[in-house]
C-alpha cells in the first residue's frame, strides 16, 4: 500500500472539484489554491522519498492487479517530475494571488489550475497507456480553458491552432493505443513492453513507434510539429503562460522518454536516430525563432522549443550519461522557463509592456530583479554556475563520448544563439535607460507602491535560488538524474515492479 503515489493525482482532483463547488467564494478558492498546490508538493516529495528508498512505487488502482486494472507506477523520473509539478504549481498559485485578474478568478482560474496539475501528475505517474491518454486530455482541456480565459482576440486566434493541432495529436495517440491493443491485447505499459519484447518483428514495432513519436512529438513541441506552441503560449495571463511553459511540453517529452526507454528499444539504431535528427532541428529552429522575436514572451516561447531539442538529444543518444543529462536538463529547464515567464510578468507589471522597444531602466531601479532574471537566463544559455550548465555539460560530454560530432556542434551553436537571443532582453529591458515613451513608470521608480508585488517576487526568488543552488551544489541533482537514467535503461526492474516478480 503506497498512498503517496495516489495522492499527487487525487489531491489536485479533489481540490479542483472543491474549488469548482466553491465557485462563488473567491477568497476560499485562493486559500484552496495555495493549500492544494502546497499539499501536492508535499505529497510528491513524500513519493520521491519513497521511490528513493524503496525503488519503484506501485499502486494497483481498485486492487486489480496489473495488467488488468490501471496501475500507477512511479520511478525516479516520474516522481521527480511530480515534485516539480508541485513546486511550480505552488509557485504559480502564489504568483496568481497577485497577478491574476479578478475576473479570471471568478470564471474558473483556480479549479482549472488544480485540474491542469492533476492532468500533469496523472501523466507522470500512470503506468497505463490508455490512462496516459486520459490524463493528456485532462491536461489539454484544462489548458484550453485557461488559454481562452479572458476571451481576447489574440487568445482566440492562438487557441484555435492550439486546439486543432493538439486534438489531431490526441487522435493519433488514441489510434496508436488502439493498434497497440490490437497487437498485444494489453494496455499496461510494462505489460506492453514485456509482450512486445517477445515479438520479433522490428519493422512492425518501429512503425508503431513512429506513430507514438509523431503524437508525442506534437505534444512536446518538437520540429516540425511545434507550430501550436509559439502561436498560443504568449496569449494568456503570464502566470498561465508560465505554467504552460514549465510543464505542458515537458509532459510530451516525458512520454517520449517513457515509451522510448521502456517499450520501443528493439531497433534503437533506427528510432533513436530519427529522434536525434529531430532533436538537432528542434534546437536550431527554436532558437532561430527566438532570434526573430521582439517581445519577451515570444522570445521565451521559441526558447521552449529549442530546449525541447536538448531534452530529446539526451533520449536520442541513449547512453546512461546522455539520458541522465537529458533528465537533468529537463528538470532545471522546467524551473528556468517558469522563472523567466514569471519575471516577464513582473516586468509587465512595472512597465506595462512585453515589447523590448518599450522597456528600459529596469537594472537601474530594480537591480534585484535583474539578478532574478539573470540566474534563469544564464541557466537557459547553459552558463555556469547555473543548473543549466551542468545539464548541457552532461549532454555534450555524452555526445562526444559517442562521437556524435554533429549534434554536439548544433548544441553548442544553439547555446551561443540562445545567449544572443536572451541577452537582448537584458540589454534592452534592463540595461538601457528608461525610454521616453513609457507611459507610466511610477511603479518602477518606486513613486507608487504596490502592496502585492512581493507575492510575484517571492516565487521567482525561490526558483532562482533553486536554480543557482542546483548548479553550485550540483551533486544531488546529478546523482538523482543518474539514478533515474539507470532505472530507465534497466526497464526489467520497472516491469517486475509493476507486474510482480517473475512476470512474463
Amino acid at each position, binding site marked *: 500500500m503506497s498512498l503517496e503515489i495516489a495522492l499527487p493525482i487525487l489531491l489536485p482532483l479533489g481540490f479542483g472539484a472543491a474549488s*469548482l463547488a466553491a465557485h462563488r467564494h473567491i477568497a476560499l478558492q485562493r486559500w484552496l489554491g495555495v493549500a492544494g498546490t502546497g499539499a501536492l508538493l508535499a505529497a510528491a516529495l513524500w513519493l520521491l522519498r519513497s521511490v528513493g528508498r524503496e525503488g519503484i512505487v506501485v499502486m494497483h488502482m*481498485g486492487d486489480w492487479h496489473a495488467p488488468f486494472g*490501471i496501475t500507477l507506477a512511479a520511478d525516479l523520473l516520474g516522481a521527480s517530475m511530480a515534485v516539480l509539478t508541485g513546486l511550480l504549481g505552488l509557485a504559480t498559485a502564489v504568483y496568481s494571488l*497577485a497577478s*491574476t*485578474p*479578478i*475576473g479570471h478568478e471568478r*470564471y*474558473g482560474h483556480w479549479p*482549472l489550475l488544480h485540474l491542469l496539475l492533476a492532468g500533469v501528475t*496523472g501523466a507522470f505517474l500512470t503506468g497505463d497507456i490508455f490512462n496516459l491518454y*486520459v490524463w493528456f*486530455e*485532462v491536461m489539454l*482541456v484544462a489548458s484550453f*480553458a485557461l488559454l481562452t*480565459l*479572458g476571451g481576447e482576440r489574440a487568445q482566440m486566434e492562438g487557441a484555435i491552432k492550439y486546439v486543432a493541432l493538439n486534438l*489531431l495529436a490526441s487522435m493519433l495517440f488514441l*489510434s496508436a493505443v488502439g*493498434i497497440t*491493443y*490490437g*497487437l498485444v*491485447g494489453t494496455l499496461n505499459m510494462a505489460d506492453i513492453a514485456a*509482450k512486445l519484447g*517477445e515479438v520479433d*518483428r*522490428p*519493422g*512492425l514495432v*518501429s*512503425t508503431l*513507434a*513512429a506513430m507514438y513519436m*509523431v503524437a508525442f*512529438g506534437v505534444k512536446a513541441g518538437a520540429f516540425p510539429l511545434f*507550430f501550436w506552441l509559439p502561436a498560443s503560449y504568449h496569449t494568456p495571463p503570464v502566470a498561465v503562460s508560465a505554467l504552460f511553459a514549465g510543464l505542458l511540453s515537458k509532459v510530451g517529452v516525458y512520454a517520449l522518454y517513457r515509451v522510448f526507454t521502456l517499450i520501443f528499444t528493439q531497433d534503437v539504431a533506427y528510432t533513436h536516430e530519427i529522434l536525434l535528427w529531430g532533436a538537432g532541428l528542434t534546437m536550431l529552429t527554436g532558437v*532561430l*525563432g*527566438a*532570434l*526573430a522575436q521582439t517581445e519577451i514572451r515570444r522570445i521565451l516561447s*521559441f526558447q521552449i522549443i529549442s530546449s525541447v531539442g536538448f531534452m530529446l538529444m539526451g533520449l536520442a543518444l541513449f547512453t546512461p550519461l546522455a539520458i541522465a543529462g537529458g533528465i537533468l536538463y529537463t528538470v532545471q529547464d522546467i524551473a528556468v522557463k517558469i522563472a523567466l515567464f514569471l519575471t516577464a510578468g513582473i516586468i509587465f507589471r512595472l512597465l506595462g509592456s512585453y515589447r523590448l522597444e518599450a522597456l528600459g531602466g529596469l537594472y537601474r531601479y530594480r537591480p534585484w530583479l535583474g539578478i532574478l532574471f539573470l540566474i534563469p537566463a544564464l541557466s537557459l544559455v547553459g*552558463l*555556469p*554556475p547555473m543548473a543549466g*550548465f*551542468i545539464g548541457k555539460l552532461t549532454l*555534450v*560530454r555524452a555526445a562526444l563520448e559517442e562521437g556524435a560530432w554533429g549534434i554536439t556542434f548544433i548544441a*553548442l551553436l544553439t547555446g*551561443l544563439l540562445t*545567449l544572443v537571443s536572451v*541577452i537582448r532582453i537584458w540589454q534592452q529591458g534592463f*540595461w538601457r535607460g528608461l525610454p521616453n515613451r513609457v507611459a507610466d513608470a511610477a511603479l518602477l521608480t518606486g513613486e507608487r507602491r504596490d502592496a502585492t508585488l512581493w507575492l510575484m517576487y517571492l516565487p521567482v526568488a525561490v526558483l532562482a535560488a533553486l536554480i543557482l543552488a542546483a548548479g553550485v551544489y*550540483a*551533486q544531488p541533482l*546529478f546523482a538523482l538524474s543518474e539514478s533515474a537514467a539507470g532505472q530507465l535503461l534497466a526497464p526489467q526492474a520497472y516491469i517486475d515492479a509493476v507486474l510482480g516478480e517473475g512476470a512474463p
Partner: protein
Amino acid sequence: MLVAVLAGFILAALVPWLQPYFGERAGRLYALLPAALTLYFATFLPGVAAGEASQAVYPWVPGLGLELAFYLDGLSLLLALLISGIGAFVVLYAGDYLHGDPRQARFFVQLLAFMASMLGLVLSDNLIALFIFWELTSITSYLLIGFDHEDATARRAALQGLVVTVGGGLALLAGLVLLGTVAGTYTISEIVTQGEAIREHGHYVPLLLLVLLGAFTKSAQVPFHFWLPNAMAAPTPVSAYLHSATMVKAGVYLLARLHPALGGTDAWIAICSLIGGATMVTGAYLAVRSTGIKWVLAYSTVMALGTLTMLAGVGTEAAMVAFVVFLLGHSLYKGALFLVAGGLEHGTGTKDLLAMGGLRRAMPITALLAAVSALSLAGLPPLFGFIGKELMLESLLAAPFAGVLLTLLAVVTALLVVAAAGAVALRPFFGPYRETPEVPHEPSNAMLAGPAVLGLLSLLFGLVPGIPGDAFVSAAAGALSSEPVHAHLALWHGLTLPLGLSALAVAGGALLYSRWDRARAAMRRIDAPLYERGPEAGYDRLMAALSDLARRVTPVLQHGYLRYYIATTVLTLVALVGLTLITRYEGGLATAIDVRFYELAIAVLFVVATVFACRTQSRLGAVVSVGVVGYAVALFYLLFSAPDLSITQILVETLTVILLVLVLFKLPGFVSFSSPRQRAWDALVAGLLGTLVTLLLLVAVDHQFAAPISEYHLAESVPLGHGRNVVNVIIVDYRALDTLGEIFVVALAAIGVYSMIQYTRPAREERS
C-alpha cells in the same frame, strides 16, 4: 585554498549589505581581502621556488568528473599573485575613482566576483572547474564592461565581448571534454603527464583546434582581437584589471598550462606562432594608429597577448622563460599605465591624447609614474620590460619554425611599441599646455598607490632580475615544459644580436614618434579599406546576417496558416510512419472480405454522408450529414456487439447536433475560400493520410501477438466486480481511474465554455 578562491565570491555577496555601513570608505575595506590573499599566496613562494606544488581536492560532481581541485605551481602562483596583488590596488583605486557614484556597490560586487573567478581559473586543476571559472570571468567582465549600461556604446562593447568569448568558450568546452575523454581524466596535473598519448590520439587535431579557438577568442588573438579595445567602455579600474593581469591572460595561461599536453606538434607550433606573431604586429600597429589613451594601451595589450601566444607556440625552453618574464613584465607596466590613464582621465576629463599636453606641471607624479611604466613597455633598460623583450628576441632567433620571420615581426613590433609608449608617456605631459575639460589635478593617493608600487616593481625587477628569477620564473617556466628549467635573468647579456636589434627598434621607434602625427595620417589613408572589411565589420555583418536569417526562416515555418500546420504535421506522420512501414515491415495485410448485406448498406451510407459533409455548401446539410455519419457509427457499434457504445454514440451525436445548430447558425454560411488547386492539394494530403491509416489498420488486424487481458475481465466480472455488464464494470471498477479523468474532462470543458461565453474581459482590467 578553497577559502582563498571562495572568499572573493563571499565578499561580493556581502557587498550589498556592507556598502550602506561603510559608504565611501568601503573600497578601502574590500581591498584588504586581495591584499590578504596576496600575502597568503606569497607564503607559497619558498616552496614553489624549491619546485614543490600544492594540491587540494574537494569533490563536487564526481559522476561528471567535476571536482574543485586546486594546484599551485610556479605558473599558477605567478598569476595568483598578479591577480590578488594588482586586484588590491585596483579595488583601492576604484573606491576613489567612483567617488560618489551610487552604483559603487554594484561595481564592487562584480569586480570582486571577477577577481575570485580569475583566481579560480588559474588555480583549478580540473578541466571542467577551469572552464566554469573561465565562463564566470566572461560573465562578470560582461557586466563590468557594460557598467555604464545606459550608454549604447558600452552595451554594444559588452555584448561583443560576451559573444566572442562565450562563443569561443563553447568551442573550448567541447575541446576540454574531448581532452578529458581522450586522457581518461579531467585532472590537469595528470593530463600534462600523458602528452605523448594525447598527441598521438586520433582526436588530437580537432581537440587542439577547439581549445585554441577558446584560448584565442579569450586572449583577443587576430581575428578576434577587436572586442578588447572596444571593452575600453569599461570604467578604468576594470580595464586595468581586465587587461593587465587577468581575463585576457586566461587564454595564454591556458596555452601555457596545456603546453606539456598538447604542445610541440607541428600544428601547435605553426598555429600558435603564426597567429601570435600576426596578433603581435597588428596590436602594435593599431596602438600607434590610435589617439585615445586607453585605446593605445588596449592595442599594446593585444600586442603583448600575441607575443605570449607566439612564445607558447615556439615552445623552447628559452621561449618559456621569455613567456614568463614577458607576462610578468607586461602585467606590471600595463596595470600601472591603465591606472595612470584613469588618473589622467579623472584629472582632465578627456581620454584623447591629442587633447592633452604640458600636463607635467599640473600632474608631476602622474607624469613620473607614466614615464617609468612606459619605459618598461618600450622595452628600455633598466626596466623589467627590457629583459622580457631581450629574452623574447633571443628565443625567436633560435625558434625551430619560421624563426627569421618571427624575429622580423618582433623587431617591427618593438619599433612600433616604442612609438606607442612615447605617445602615452610623453605626449600628455610635454609640449605646449592645452586646455582640458577639467582643470588638471593629481589624483588621490589611493589612486596613485597602484601605479607607484607597480612601477617600482618594474624598476626593481629590472635592476635586480634575480629576485623574480629565483622566486618563481624558473618554477613557472618549468610548469610549461615537461622538464625543470633554470632561468638566469640578467640585465646585461653582452653585445649580442638581440641587443643590436633592440637598439635598432628603439632608434626607429623614436624616429616614428617624432613623426607620429604624419605617420597616423598615412596609416589611416592606407588601411581605411581594411577597416570596412576587417574582423569587426565581419562580426557586425555576422550578427546582422543572423538576425536576418532568423527573420527569414521563422516566418517560413511559423507562418500562421493553420492548414499548412496541419498539413506539415500529417505529412511528417506519413513520412515517418509510412516510410517505416514500407521500408521495414515484412508481412501481409488482412484481406479477408466477409461482409453482410446490411453492413455494406451502412458502409455506403457512411461513405456517402462523409463525402457529402465535405462537399456540401449548406450548413444544414453539413450538420445533418455529420449526424448521419455519427448514427452510422452507432449502428456499427450495435451490429458488432457494443450496445453501450451505441447508446452513448446516439445520445452524444444528438447532443452534438443540437450544439452545432445552436452555434452554427450564429456563424456565416459556408464560403469556399480556397482555389480548386488548393483543394486538390489538400485532397492529396488527406488521401495520403487516409491510405496510411487504412494500411496501418490492415496490418494491425492481421497480427495478434498475445491474448487480450479482457479474458480476465470477463471471468471476474460477476464474482469480483458484482456486475453483469462487463463494459460498465470496466468503466466504474476495473478502470475507474479513466472514468474519473473523463468526467473531469467534461467538467473542464463546461468551465471553459461557461467562461468563454459569460466572461469577456474588459480591456486593460487590472486587479485592484
